[in-house]
């Protein structure tokens, strides 16, 4: 009886144990499996190597320089490890004298915490050549880890700087937006680097590893490599871009060379800066000098610069005039002065243009024609038409944060300033002045519209990986506008080829082009002034912005070349020469094939 009782007791305990085992092992299996995996299995993400950017001839524009970063074991600043920490720092300084110890300590302390069990990144980048002689010594040390860390490098330095953009260390704001940046560390901040950041940065890989109680790796369980080394081919030609940079030496402004279908061969904003200084970091003084410069080197004037378009707007307005209320044969008699709303609106030509029709008005840039035309057309029709052509909207270029500019209208003014529109503003808008603001790229896009009859969407990417980026465009012109477009084209041809054309004397291009000059005033001319000062007599910042936008060859338009020189004075004089040289370079590089120049 006693034995049976004892055995029953054993059995009961055994059964109770089995019930508990069942609960732990079967019922809570997934819970405890996860818990144990957390202790023993660790996931490590592998940072992808940023993709490279090349130009249309496969020349590297943004590449990765091979280097390493140095990491230090965590918790070394605690009392019991303090000596170890000092020893490691001492050795690093001895082997790599160029290291900044203060920065190293700062980097370490910033990330050191009880909860961090990962190695801490203390030196973000050391060039390959520098680390190699000491690699074997450092790699033997238990507390030091050396891992590959590529660094962005821009071989063309300041060429097309604004367009290419740069990468820099990701800040907390960037990390909040994209958690992956915590691992990668760098992100595209401007230009193409920012716009195609997702594509270029790739996707991280992952390692599943088994660790012991000391968090040391025992075995690698799975390995998934990062999706990296993606290639972005641009439409830019860096040789042409370098040439244009030389042309713009000492000038401030923007230039764009665009295929009439939207592919951009060259896009520059001046002055520019060496992109590599952003990757390595620059001194406070250097940053201060650049950011406080009145020439705004950090601004990509092509898409972020807002300027009055001046007379470059006349071809688009002219097209609106002759397709709405006016006929192509409608003409005015320009007497140089038009009294309007208690003010005198002057034409640039002191003696006036006399009888002027649309062709002459564009060819000789007659302001009076456009003043009078605008009064017939009215501001509403003008602003609506220009907006339909694509102004006051993004061009759609693959660059971040493009500005849209302003096409002034009654509604816009009321909304913006809560003030009434006056008739003089209609006249001012007609010559691209007043509140009228455009970006240089918008003017180039409008020129392509005049050249081909369709509005191309500018783009800088030629191939994303192996996928070719197709040209896209919008049909914005009505049938009537398309029918009367040759009138404007002919007028623009005469601007560059007729002896009375505003650009003819400044051009020396071997390509037959059509274009439009623009001299956009930045200060108002006083009403009582008898004799206007010449541009070069004005103080630099009072001089007009010089525009010249063109397309060529005239008969078979292939490229739009637009140049805008801030405070350059007369459009034809300041920008015409640059544009001519660019066409000649296009010819030399084989982009334009033209046997001989048409005779004027």
């Amino acid at each position, binding site marked *: 009886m006693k034995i049976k009782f*004892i*055995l029953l007791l054993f059995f009961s*305990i055994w059964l109770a144990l089995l019930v508990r085992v069942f609960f732990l092992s079967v019922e809570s299996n997934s819970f405890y499996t996860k818990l144990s995996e957390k202790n023993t299995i660790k996931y490590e993400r592998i940072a992808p190597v940023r993709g490279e950017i090349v130009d249309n001839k496969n020349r590297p524009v943004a590449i990765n320089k091979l280097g390493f970063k140095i990491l230090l074991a965590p918790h070394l600043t605690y009392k019991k490890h303090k000596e170890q920490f000092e020893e490691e720092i001492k050795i690093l300084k001895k082997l790599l004298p160029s290291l900044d110890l203060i920065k190293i300590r700062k980097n370490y302390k910033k990330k050191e915490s009880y909860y961090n069990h990962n190695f801490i990144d203390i030196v973000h980048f050391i060039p390959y050549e520098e680390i190699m002689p000491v690699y074997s010594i450092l790699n033997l040390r238990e507390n030091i880890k050396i891992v590959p860390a590529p660094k962005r490098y821009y071989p063309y330095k300041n060429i097309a700087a604004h367009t290419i953009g740069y990468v820099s260390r990701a800040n907390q704001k960037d990390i909040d937006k994209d958690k992956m940046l915590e691992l990668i560390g760098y992100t595209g901040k401007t230009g193409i680097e920012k716009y195609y950041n997702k594509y270029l940065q790739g996707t991280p890989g992952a390692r599943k590893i088994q660790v012991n109680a000391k968090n040391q790796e025992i075995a690698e369980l799975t390995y998934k490599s990062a999706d990296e080394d993606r290639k972005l081919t641009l439409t830019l030609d860096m040789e042409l871009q370098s040439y244009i940079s030389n042309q713009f030496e000492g000038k401030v402004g923007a230039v764009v060379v665009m295929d009439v279908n939207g592919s951009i061969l060259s896009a520059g904003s001046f002055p520019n800066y060496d992109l590599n200084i952003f990757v390595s970091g620059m001194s406070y003084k250097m940053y201060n000098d650049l950011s406080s410069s009145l020439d705004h080197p950090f601004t990509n004037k092509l898409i972020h610069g807002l300027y009055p378009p001046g007379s470059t707007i006349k071809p688009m307005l002219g097209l609106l005039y002759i397709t709405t209320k006016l006929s192509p044969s409608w003409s005015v008699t320009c007497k140089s002065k038009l009294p309007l709303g208690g003010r005198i609106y002057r034409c640039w030509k002191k003696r006036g243009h006399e009888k002027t029709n649309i062709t002459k008005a564009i060819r000789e840039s007659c302001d009076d024609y456009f003043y009078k035309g605008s009064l017939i057309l009215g501001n509403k029709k003008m602003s609506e038409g220009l907006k339909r052509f694509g102004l006051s909207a993004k061009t759609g270029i693959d660059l971040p944060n493009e500005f849209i500019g302003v096409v002034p209208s009654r509604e816009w003014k009321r909304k913006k300033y809560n003030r009434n529109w006056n008739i003089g503003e209609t006249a001012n808008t007609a010559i691209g002045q007043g509140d009228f603001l455009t970006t240089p790229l918008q003017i180039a896009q409008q020129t392509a519209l005049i050249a081909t009859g369709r509005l191309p969407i500018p783009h800088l990417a030629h191939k994303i990986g192996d996928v070719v980026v197709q040209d896209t465009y919008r049909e914005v012109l009505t049938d009537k506008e398309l029918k009367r477009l040759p009138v404007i084209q002919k007028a623009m041809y005469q601007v560059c080829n007729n002896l009375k054309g505003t650009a003819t004397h400044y051009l020396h291009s071997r390509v037959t082009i059509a274009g439009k000059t623009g001299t956009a005033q930045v200060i108002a001319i006083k009403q009582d002034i008898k004799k206007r000062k010449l541009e070069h007599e004005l103080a630099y910042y009072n001089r007009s912005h010089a525009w010249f936008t063109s397309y060529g060859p005239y008969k078979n338009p292939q490229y739009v070349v637009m140049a805008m020189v801030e405070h350059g004075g007369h459009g034809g004089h300041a920008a015409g020469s640059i544009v001519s040289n660019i066409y000649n370079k296009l010819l030399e590089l084989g982009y334009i094939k033209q046997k001989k120049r048409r005779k004027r």
Partner: protein
Amino acid sequence: MQRSITHQNTVELFAYVVFFIFYSSLSSIYPFLPPMFAVLFVLFSKALKREDTISVLILSFCLVIFEANNGYILFSSIIYFYILYKFIMPRIKQNFSCHECIKISNLVLAYLGYFLFLTLISNIFLLTTPEINYYIVYYIVIEFFLVSLL
């Protein structure tokens, strides 16, 4: 003063237990020392047959030590031995008249049967399956002679 026979037995049993603890520790280190599992089974069966509570308790203790040494489930060997003794051995005895055959079946059931029993439980409760090796044959042979002496 003459010591009572009951006390003498208890002291003897206590000495055996102490010896077993040492021996069991050694056998877990040196695999050529058989764990005496089958011997314990025979002794356990005899104790049950005699309804000797003290012996059953002491042998149970030895079995628990064996389980602990090998990382088996607590009381699993006792439960298994009881099942063997109560339900399986009577059938074997019914079918075999040969004593040697019964001894061999005792040994095989003790070792292989227990291994299968543990495997079954481990599979049901998702525990680590016990490992078996060729030493078991050696243990069966050695313990056959020892059991013969009992």
